[in-house]
């Protein structure tokens, strides 16, 4: 890559003075520095970005614009699901089998991508106890929640200026003694 850039610059140099060419050459290390700086940043391009992971994600999951996955609130229409959030609540009421256990309290967030066709993938989970500390819930709870999330097929493609876009959506499950008591947002 570096060689290609150098050859291009040399060709370009035939059209510019030697002073300008040297100036451009001097910029190359700076360009590299800028790139390294971004790579070394502790932040992703956007907060909460979910990169493709071949161990977890579907290879055939299609995105309209991989480089610009937006947020569910970016079109100011909130959560958009066929039958509204009530349909999601009813899915969980039907499918989730509570695991009665007084130690299973807190929040579980499942975040994922809804593509421009309304399909979903790249599911990721975080969880906390009632004091906002990381918590590992009973696997039977998290796995059920994840599976039911994956089965939800009513996500509506979101539009902004008449153009459909891919977006990040999340669902938070409030768990009390192994029961789902609320679903957010």
């Amino acid at each position, binding site marked *: 890559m570096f060689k290609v850039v150098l050859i291009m610059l040399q060709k370009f140099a035939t059209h510019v003075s030697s002073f300008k060419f040297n100036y451009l050459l001097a910029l190359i290390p700076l360009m590299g520095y800028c790139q390294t700086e971004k790579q070394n940043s502790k932040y992703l391009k*956007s907060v909460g970005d979910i990169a493709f992971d071949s161990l977890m994600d579907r290879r055939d999951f299609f995105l309209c614009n991989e480089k610009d996955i937006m947020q569910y609130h970016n079109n100011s229409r909130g959560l958009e699901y066929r039958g*509204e959030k009530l349909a999601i609540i009813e899915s969980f009421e039907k499918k989730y089998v509570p695991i009665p256990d007084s130690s299973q309290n807190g929040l579980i967030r499942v975040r994922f991508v809804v593509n421009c066709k309304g399909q979903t993938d790249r599911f990721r989970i975080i969880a906390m106890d009632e004091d906002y500390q990381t918590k590992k819930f009973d696997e039977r709870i998290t796995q059920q929640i994840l599976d039911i999330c994956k089965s939800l097929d009513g996500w509506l493609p979101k539009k902004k200026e008449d153009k459909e876009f891919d977006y990040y959506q999340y669902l938070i499950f409030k768990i009390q003694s192994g029961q789902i008591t609320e679903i957010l947002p």
Partner: protein
Amino acid sequence: MKWIIFIFFLPICVAGQPNCNVFLYNKDTAQYNACKSVESVPYYQYTRNYQEKFDKALEICPYFAFAYSAKSTAYLKSGDFLTWKYLIDKAVQFDSIYLDYRAWCRYQFFRDYKGAIADIELLERRKKTKEIGYSAGGEYHLLVAKAMCYSALNQKNKAIEILEDLFSDSTYQAGLFDYYQLAVSYFQIKDYDKAWKYCLEQSKVNNLAENKYYMARISKIKGNTQEYLSLKEESILLYKKEKYMFDPYTEHFNKVYLDTIEKL
């Protein structure tokens, strides 16, 4: 309707950047310099550039609370309760002015009723007045938020007591959903006359599909069939005109869905 509400409250939502000169006046140069460095940040709050810009402000002044608050917003909106709480706690630690914001967000985004009540009651103790602030979007007085939290914890009478006390203050101007929240609490303890009264009050302030739905329920319970059907129809009509409780991030407390209204 949704847009009207959204645009109406926009100035409150975006107000947050402190006046840097206050720090200078207090001879706090470090905080003044940090504040000036983020006076106009041209990046979206989710972006790396935005986060890094505020990190730099914190390098200038590690106790610049606004930077922690600003950084926390994207985590809040993406549902990352772990990172959000760490950052907003830092903001509150360095400046208690962020306590009202933390209280509201605990309720709105994470339905942390007990946590929100604790923050709001702390505010009340500190301020010793009812003027403790509003929700981030300005729709709810924080005492209404406290009442909603108690209602969610199934302490309906406590919720009613807080709201009645607040509304009895002649200087208090009712918010867009205040009377509705009180009406629903009365409905839940089966005081249908009081519920009806506050539904009527709500209609005057902001006629909502949800409000008409509860009026339809009361009419149905009382056996007023014609009135029930008419109110149900009105509720559905309002819903289809998007005159319902809406927030672009989360759902309102006691929101009612179209399917629920149709099945009444």
